[in-house]
């Protein structure tokens, strides 16, 4: 119960910071909208559904990466990670709260991005929306974990994509699969399994990421 309250307090702090500084969400929105506009004009003729599905996932993945790269910026710039690490709460709460905040930003960006995609290209079915939700969970869980690892290094802007993109490939494969096939059950199941597995791993090992 105190764990839930810790996560709540930490996530609330991240939302409040975003509300004040507006560093992340506007950038994500602008980025994803710009990608769709560029794709729209860059693709000759009417691209098939199969092709645009690929672009949708490229857009989602890189928009997420933009948000993940900024997730720990307040902690880095103001060196407040020490304050959080010293607090008596379970350290995994720091990861969970940051993941939830990033998830909120990503979801907010997608609320705009998905209708935009439907407008420019093709409509999205229920399976595609389910795939987006499941993919978001995995992206934020893994990405936040790697973001915390990368933020203490000098080459953080290079390291995060380098670590994140390979680990996100199963998400892309599962999500594209779920979006294009007729019976997406297996792909959705795969995404859910990925989420569960990586969430548990990140949750259990975050302690070691923030230890000196």
């Amino acid at each position: 119960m105190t764990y839930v309250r810790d996560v709540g307090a930490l996530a609330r702090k991240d939302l409040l910071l975003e509300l004040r500084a507006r560093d992340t969400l506007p950038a994500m929105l602008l980025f994803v909208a710009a990608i769709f506009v560029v794709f729209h004009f860059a693709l000759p003729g009417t691209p098939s559904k199969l092709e645009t599905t690929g672009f949708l996932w490229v857009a989602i993945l890189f928009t997420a990466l933009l948000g993940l790269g900024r997730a720990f910026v307040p902690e880095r710039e103001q060196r407040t990670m020490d304050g959080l690490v010293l607090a008596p709460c379970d350290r995994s709460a720091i990861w969970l709260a940051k993941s939830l905040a990033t998830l909120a930003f990503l979801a907010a960006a997608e609320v705009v991005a998905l209708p935009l995609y439907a407008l420019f290209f093709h409509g999205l079915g229920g399976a595609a929306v389910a795939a987006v939700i499941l993919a978001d969970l995995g992206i934020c869980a893994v990405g936040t974990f790697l973001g915390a690892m990368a933020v203490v290094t000098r080459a953080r802007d290079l390291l995060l994509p380098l670590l994140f993109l390979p680990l996100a490939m199963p998400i892309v494969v599962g999500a594209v699969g779920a979006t294009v096939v007729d019976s997406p059950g297996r792909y959705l199941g795969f995404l859910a399994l990925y989420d569960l597995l990586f969430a548990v791993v990140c949750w259990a090992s975050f302690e070691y990421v923030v230890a000196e």
Partner: protein
Amino acid sequence: MLTARRLGKRYGEKRVLRGIDLALPRGGFVVVTGPNGAGKTTLLRICAGLAQPTEGTIERQAARAQVGYLGHEPLVYRELTALENLELYGRLYRVPERRERIGMLLERFGLWEARHDRVASYSRGMTQRLALCRVLLHEPELLVLDEPYSALDEAGAELLDAQLAELRGERTCLLATHDPAHVRPLASGALALST
């Protein structure tokens, strides 16, 4: 409360601390001095649990929740107000009667009027006062204070003097400073580091 034996710390090839012995009994007040770069901050970070020694051992009879650490950085969010920052830490430290305690500290350190202002708009001294509020918020058993007087004006220093005198004997304190004469009346021990 805190016992360090043959403590050493190196960053790569660089030896920062070597063979430090420290015994800080419950209720003790040890003042750490030394020139810039002597390793005061490094030692205090190890004592607070923020860093690990590379040699020797350190024993601390205080849980994480019982430690109050003041570093060179205020460890507060600049885009949040003083109140929001203390609310956050108050929740994380499970401070009972949080609102009252926060109000009392802000009042005492002269920040009550500015409680709804973002820390980004604070002066350095005000930020240091807020950092002190943060450290004292959960009434820690062990205070680890790294140059707590820095940036404080005369009134601020007096407030801190009074606060430390009040806690003297009750709480344990490890304090690094460049002005040991100022805290000498409170000190029970001293540790001089050299480069």
